[in-house]
């Protein structure tokens, strides 16, 4: 089967993130002092369990980040070509994850069905072979195969929740990735150089943080939406559209969330500047850049790590809120926010449909909790003051 790889913006950033993580791992293996904290993490059972859960999420997220299109084929499996003999691809973009879970993806029902149910959730008119019509709970096509039931259009909820993992991870990591360099740079510059640099940076972040975040996000997303609507031709298909929106959501979330970290880092840098080892290296004639790199940055890294993790959880949750309000990810995109948003109506109907919400909640909870636990252990291991010999 011939395929064409599709590289989405967020995919590329995820690859970049993955590469730098691998690079860091290779780098740390060479140095004992970087290796030993990880060994300590490995001795922490709770952290290892959390790490394993996190690892599963990440693998799923990564599988879902390799996208491709299949060649279009007609009913008989013959590859179709366009009039000039060019290659035509199917319009829908699939990911490796989609292939792995094909069975779940394609086992669709007609409408709602409860988790692991054998019959549909609401009564349906069924025409019996003898032509009589009765109203009953119809047997499902795939009895007991839907772990979290199916949704309104009969899609497997578990599949949708799995697809939500990537969205969650992308929002949680890329947002921080985008804002981190900016927050770190401005924060330590303000604290280190003081004077007018400090005044300027403080002025910027005070101004920025006094604009309500939701307003900023909403206006940016609406502007993007208008742009995408007027230039619809630039976006080949829905997936690319949705991904562009996701990417810009990350950017705008990053812009509205760097101020908090920047402020903390500025304060910490001011404190570190008073430390005698910083003054000692100034006395040794060490340049500004080296001092920042060797004395300031390593000593604020634990704060960065903590806030990245807290932000990660916060952002995964924020995605849900924003999607709920309608300024989050694209409504066609699979995300926990959209699932929760849909659940709003489902909880209001009678009998209620709770599994959409439950599935989104359980997966989100698992991700946030394991990320928090794991990061706690990592932070403790990297803090030399807490380290026991």
């Amino acid at each position, binding site marked *: 089967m011939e395929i064409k790889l599709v590289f989405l913006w967020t995919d590329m950033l995820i690859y970049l993130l993955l590469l730098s993580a691998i690079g860091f791992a290779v780098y740390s293996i060479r140095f004992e002092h970087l290796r030993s904290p990880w060994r300590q993490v490995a001795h922490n059972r709770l952290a290892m369990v959390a790490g394993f859960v996190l690892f599963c999420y990440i693998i799923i997220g990564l599988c879902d980040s390799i996208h491709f299109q299949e060649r279009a084929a007609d009913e008989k499996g013959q590859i179709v070509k366009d009039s000039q003999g060019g290659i035509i691809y199917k319009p829908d973009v699939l990911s490796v994850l989609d292939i792995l879970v094909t069975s779940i993806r394609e086992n669709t029902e007609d409408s709602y069905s409860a988790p692991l149910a054998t019959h549909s959730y609401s009564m349906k008119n069924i025409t019996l072979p003898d032509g009589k019509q009765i109203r009953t709970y119809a047997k499902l096509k795939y009895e007991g195969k839907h772990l979290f039931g199916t949704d309104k259009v009969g899609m497997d909820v578990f599949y949708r929740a799995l697809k939500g993992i990537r969205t969650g991870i992308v929002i949680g990591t890329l947002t921080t990735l985008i804002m981190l360099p900016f927050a770190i740079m401005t924060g330590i510059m303000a604290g280190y150089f003081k004077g007018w640099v400090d005044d300027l940076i403080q002025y910027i972040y005070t101004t920025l943080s006094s604009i309500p975040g939701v307003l900023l996000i909403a206006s940016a997303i609406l502007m993007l939406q208008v742009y995408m609507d007027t230039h619809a031709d630039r976006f080949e298909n829905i997936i690319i559209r949705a991904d562009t929106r996701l990417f810009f959501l990350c950017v705008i979330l990053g812009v509205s969330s760097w101020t908090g970290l920047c402020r903390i880092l500025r304060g910490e840098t001011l404190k570190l500047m008073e430390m005698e080892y910083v003054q000692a290296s100034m006395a040794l004639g060490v340049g500004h850049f080296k001092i920042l790199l*060797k004395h300031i940055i390593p000593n604020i890294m634990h704060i960065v790590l903590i806030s990245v993790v807290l932000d990660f959880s916060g952002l995964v949750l924020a995605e849900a809120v924003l999607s709920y309000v309608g300024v989050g990810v694209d409504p066609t995109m699979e995300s926990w926010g959209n699932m929760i948003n849909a659940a709003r109506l489902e909880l209001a109907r009678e009998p209620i449909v709770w599994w959409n919400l439950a599935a989104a909640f359980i997966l989100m909870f698992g991700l946030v909790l394991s990320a928090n636990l794991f990061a706690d252990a990592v932070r403790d291991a990297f803090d030399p003051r807490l380290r026991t010999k």
Partner: protein
Amino acid sequence: MKMNNDPLLSVKDLRTCFRTTNGLARAVDGISFDIPAGKTLALVGESGCGKSVTALSIMRLIQEPAGYIAGDRIIFQGQDLLKLSKRKMREIRGNRISMIFQEPMTSLNPVMTIGEQIMEVIQLHRGLSKKEALGLAVEMLNQVKIPDPAIRISEYPHQLSGGMKQRVMIAIALSCEPDLLIADEPTTSLDVTVQAQILMLMKELQQKEGTAILLITHDIAVVYEVADYITVMYAGRAIEQAKRSRFFRHACHPYTTRLFESLPSMDKRNEQLSTIPGRVPDPTRYPEGCRFADRCHLAFDRCNKEDPKMRFIEKGHSIACHLENAPAISTATATITRKTEGRATYTSSPLVSVKDLKIYYPIRKGLLKSIVGHVKAVDGIDISIGQGETLALVGESGCGKTTMGRGILRLIDITCGTIHFNNIDIMHISGSKLRRLRKDMQIMFQDPYGSLNPRMMVNQIISEGLISQGIGGNKKERDNIVKELMDQVGLDPGMIHRYPHEFSGGQRQRIGIARFLAVKPKFVVCDEVTSALDVSVQAQILNLLKTLQQREDLSYLFITHNLSVVTYIADLVAVMYLGKIVERGTIREVFDTPGHPYTQALLAASPCIGEDGRKKIFLEGEVPSPVNPPEGCHFHPRCPKVMPGCRKVYPGQYSLSETHSTRCWLYE
């Protein structure tokens, strides 16, 4: 035996243990002592020997369940404190036995007025009405000599100075007229003049009320001033006990004598100080024989096998040592003839010369942060230091000596003045030129914890200067230089891949020394480098600094408040008070014939062994804030010799000899 012969407190074989991840730590491991009513017993020892744990055990304030008292008994006024119920013990605590701590900043509640805090204790233990308690509180403040007690009583702790807070602590501790006062390093965080006031106050109150005092300290000189009985602790045990009169003449446990010998003083200027190698053993793993054996210079076979028991060598004097005739201390009696005087005159052109240095900090107030005044931290100072010379800058906290040290190296912004280093005007160079010159001027800090980056390994710390100054080619060569330096400062070169937290305080200071040595400086500012260290470690560091000075012909600016260190290491001394130098001269001149009343008071206030008949000058009050120093001579509100003219104009400089000068109207 008659009742009234019994000591007030009698501790018998006290043992206190803590469960740690490394095993059971026997912090106090069988200590016995008695305190007679109305007397002072001093518990002396270096950090980590179990002094504070002993005090907390008597108060039964050991944090359970991690720690517990396994010991025998603590008899206080005839009852065994260890057998009392928790409720009974609470009645005794703060009432019959009370305690004051080292840090007055943290032992007062910042959100309660000092009056409320005193009254709380009084009401709790004495059942007085609010009004009576208030009256008593005022009286207590009066007793501890806090001026205007009726007004002060409604102030909050942050409005008081350190010395005042410690007085309030004493007032609280004494408000229920306890029979025993436990003072855990009560003056360690205070300036000498204030320390003298507090010690005096404690002594006076003791005479008046007949309170017994258990004084915990690491400072033998303080012990000399106030104690009646002395118990020296080492590794959780008492190793020597004696009366004061006997102790300071005949102390003979090898550890005690070594402690004495490691005290710096003028007499030892031309020798190396004795040091005690190694460290106090880990309380989870005490050696089998004498616990001091691996550090003892007199150890012999038996010491490693058999644990020495406390035995009397004379009435009222016992030691725990196998030696039959342990040699007694020599320092109190021996005077060493000084071979050479410290270099007194400046070499033709000084290495460092500072003229009229001023460092002001603006005080900003209001919405627009307009400048409303200046803190004159350093206010017009001239100094010069020759090659190979040591100038000591002494003064109490807040006098600007630390600011001065950093200012000379241009680590902080200077308001005005000139600094010449090796005839280069360093005020007017900047950028890479200044950076290159920095290699010749280094600094070393007080805090062995804050001065090393906790996230860098030792080799990174030491080689930082090598890299920035482009010394040593590649990493391998640099590592070799680092190893060599570590060897020079007495660290095991095998430890180059360790992090600072794996080292003891003294070792960290050695790393600090290696760091500046790496760039081969000519001039080093030493900012209170030994004040966080135990005496035996202090001696090691002082020895090292002295050896290096001789070998490398280094010049030091030695900033300290410890006068005995000054007499040992410095050639010249400058006394600072509120941003100005009030007296300067050679060590001999300033210490033997101090001119300025402040210097005289400072010398008199610093505790000193073996000077019984010394006239004491007690200074009133504390160093005023440099925000608005007193008019005229800054010292006049505290000066015992103040004259009317002193209040108007700051005195000029008057020479007493070629090298000795002072700024005081007395010498006009």
